[in-house]
């Protein structure tokens, strides 16, 4: 039997393929169903580490500084990212508050900090603590972080309120907008196979 590590099965149609070395930034696709089998990224780990650290700083800024300010004549209402969640919880909507908390704060934070715990030791040639569990968790959190969807939500809410009062964007909003691009770039730069290979 040939080496199992030189083979890969398509995760969408189960077809077996021989792994071949790819040129940088190339993608190997399944010949039968077209699913992405694996990718090769240039400096994947370094880039993801840099983006993750940037992301964490922006995440803190986005949560600490005022997000949006709502002004109607003399009334000024300043909000943070969590204000809406607290307000929903106060209205007895704890399920909705929980879903919003998980998808906009908890999951993105776990994803970013998990990646940091994995990548910093690898950078210093050490074995990360509980790597298999940690990386599996990070990958499973990923679909539940929905910051980019939240951004569209802000846009819609702003259009809805703009006739009623003035909406002033805060520091956190700008940090949030950059964070979305950082997260997308980090996901695009990640080659999971390199991380799994450190376990071999």
């Amino acid at each position, binding site marked *: 039997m040939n080496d*199992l590590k030189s083979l890969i099965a398509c995760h969408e149609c*189960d077809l077996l393929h021989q792994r071949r070395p790819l040129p940088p930034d190339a993608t190997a696709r399944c010949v039968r169903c077209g699913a992405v089998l*694996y990718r090769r990224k240039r400096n994947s780990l370094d880039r993801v580490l840099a983006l993750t650290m940037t992301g964490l700083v922006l995440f803190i800024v986005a949560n600490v500084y005022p997000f949006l300010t*709502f002004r109607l004549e003399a009334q000024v209402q300043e909000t943070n990212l969590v204000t809406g969640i607290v307000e929903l919880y106060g209205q007895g909507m704890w399920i909705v508050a929980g879903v919003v908390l998980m998808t906009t704060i908890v999951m993105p934070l776990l994803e970013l900090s998990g990646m940091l715990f994995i990548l910093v030791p690898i950078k210093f040639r050490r074995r990360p603590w509980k790597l298999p569990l940690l990386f*599996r968790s990070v990958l499973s959190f990923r679909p539940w972080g*929905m910051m980019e969807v939240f951004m569209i*939500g802000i846009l*819609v*809410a702003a259009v809805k309120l703009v006739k009623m009062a003035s909406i002033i964007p805060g520091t956190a909003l700008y940090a949030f907008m950059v964070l979305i691009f950082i997260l997308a770039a980090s996901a695009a730069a990640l080659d999971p196979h390199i991380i799994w290979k450190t376990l071999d």
Partner: protein
Amino acid sequence: MKTSTPTARKASLISCHSCHLLSKAVSIAKNQAAYCPRCGARLHSRKPNSTARTWALIFAAFIFYIPANVLPITTVISFGKAQSDTIMSGVIYFVKSGSWPIALVIFVASVFVPLLKLFLLTFLLISVHRKSRWRPKDRTRLYRITEAVGRWSMVDIYVVTILVALVKLGSLATIEAGPGAIFFAGVVVITMFAAMSFDPRLIWDAQESHDER
């Protein structure tokens, strides 16, 4: 390629769904589990009880979809008067006020996408049960669509969150979330789990069992 397509299952291999390492499928006792030697994830040749789980989640989502659209998702209280809005009345408000693009975003994300997802998954499940051999590549593509678009339905929940946070002006104007929001958040989360529990490899299994004959 028609003659005996080499799949992991035919080669008695199991692909780890997490790190993609192939392991030899050894026969194990009924209630025992096999784990990936590299990353420790539980090994399954196919996602466990994929069709039963997906059916159950689809039915739950269909049931939630009705109150999500009938019950109000926001209530605006202004000078003692309360006005409730459902998802559809929100869309109509935007159409009337001329914000066509926003109306379209809300309609597509909140009304069209959840229904599309539910119908696509139902169609895929029926095709798997019938061991259909019709255009497996296109059906896999449909599955990818259901997986990718689901998260965007959350938009309305976030709009409600932001409105509730911003509009707290006492007796002047206050916005409260309505019970429809609970069901709507339920629809989004349940359909995401439904898409995750469906195994696209089932689409191709029918293909292979036919080729062998």
